[in-house]
């Protein structure tokens, strides 16, 4: 059974979001997603300062099995990326919600309410 932390928000495309105290939003892929992908071997992170709209492809995670696009869950600007993943993409497999975070966004809108909560995401992956 994969982990689905209750304090996070989720998308249908298996991204999670955490709203930090400073208003920035941290994004990663869920435990369910990393399990489906298997051992990750490369991560193509977005450029800092890049701006995207919700739903844009902004990042790629690649496992031995397949390459998978990661989508911006909300609109905003990339302010920080997790450089550690360049050399050790497998951190995501070990720690999808903590050390395996992908990037941080400064949101440009107010789209958080449109996302799924933990219960809704849990239900969606059980289908």
């Amino acid at each position, binding site marked *: 059974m994969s982990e689905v932390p209750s304090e996070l928000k989720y998308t249908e495309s298996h991204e999670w979001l955490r709203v930090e105290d400073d208003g920035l939003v941290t994004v990663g892929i869920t435990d369910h997603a990393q*399990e489906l992908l*298997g*051992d990750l*071997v*490369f991560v*193509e992170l977005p450029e800092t300062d890049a701006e995207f709209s919700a739903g844009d492809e902004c990042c790629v995670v*690649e496992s*031995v*099995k397949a*390459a998978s696009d990661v989508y911006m869950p909300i609109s905003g600007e990339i302010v920080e990326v997790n450089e550690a993943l360049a050399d050790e993409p*497998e951190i995501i*497999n070990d720690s999808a919600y903590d050390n395996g975070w992908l990037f941080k966004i400064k949101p440009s809108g107010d789209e958080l309410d449109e996302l799924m909560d933990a219960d809704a995401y849990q239900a969606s992956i059980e289908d």
Partner: protein
Amino acid sequence: MNKTVLFDKHVEYGGKIVDFAGWQMPVNYGSQIDEHHQVRQDAGMFDVSHMVIVDLTDGDIKGFLQYLLANDVAKLTESGKALYSCMLNERGGVIDDLIVYCMHDDWYRVVVNAGTRDKDLAWINKHAADFNVSVKERDDLAMIAVQGPHAREKSFEALPVDVVEAASPLKRFFGADCGEWFVGRTGYTGEDGFEIMVPESEAAALWDKLAAAGVKPCGLGARDTLRLEAGMNLYGSDMTEDTSPLISGLGWTIAWQPEDRNFIGRGVIEEEKATGVKQKIVGLILESRGVLRSHQRVIVDLDGGEQGEGEITSGTFSPSLQKSIALARVPVATGDTCKVDIRGKQLDARVVKPVFVRDGQPV
């Protein structure tokens, strides 16, 4: 969906089960990369019970196999010696690749792929009839492949005493039987080790004993990265019924001598050889980040400056090299550089001989 007799063990040991050729098999037990390193550095085991074991007895078995196979079983001059060969159709295309052991004149054992079971058995049975050979599928036997530098020594701790006695003297690419058990010093990883055929009722106990001896369960994911690093072909990817062995990196498995040995497909591939083989299998190494995958288009630099096109037949990420590697079918005159179209971008790759790891080390 089929399950091998070891299915419950896979679940017990934490295997992630997927569909492979209609069989429910473990793709990994947590990390296919860890399992890959286990085999290169120590010992790992694979359930290969879905593969098909066929015993041939009675009649003119040698004559039959000399007709059926592109390699020549006359090379099997010692009891237990094994041979890797392709079985061709009348168009010179590859029906399957297989290993055949000659135990004695009246008993040969053949192991073919799981995914090609039905067509292989139909083909073998059809042609065996002309030689009065009896064909028996041994679906009463399970098979466990134990592979790695410490595979044999750890197997000896787990195998019954009489099987150890039979298996200890085995040279590479030889097999020995002991009662209903059979051990081949063969494998699909490029490492030393055994492929152990065991009565189904004893397979689960053997699995546990091997685990207790320190052999780690490994899944199909690791099996693929290991065999590709070792430059070993995968049927269905690197060769099919529509490709001759000569364009599939399998020319070395054809025994052309003696010239009067007529085997199925000989005429067609002889003609191909005479007019000039147009393509070959090469190895590719991607220097940049990314993963090479089957069917990606390859743009090659030909000797003489022009460009040609090819296709990746098998690609993956190599845990031993920490880079992506592939086998690709390209024009014969391909030089040592090419580009691969990966999701719309053309990335540079090096063209090398189709073997990437030998004796556990990058070549």
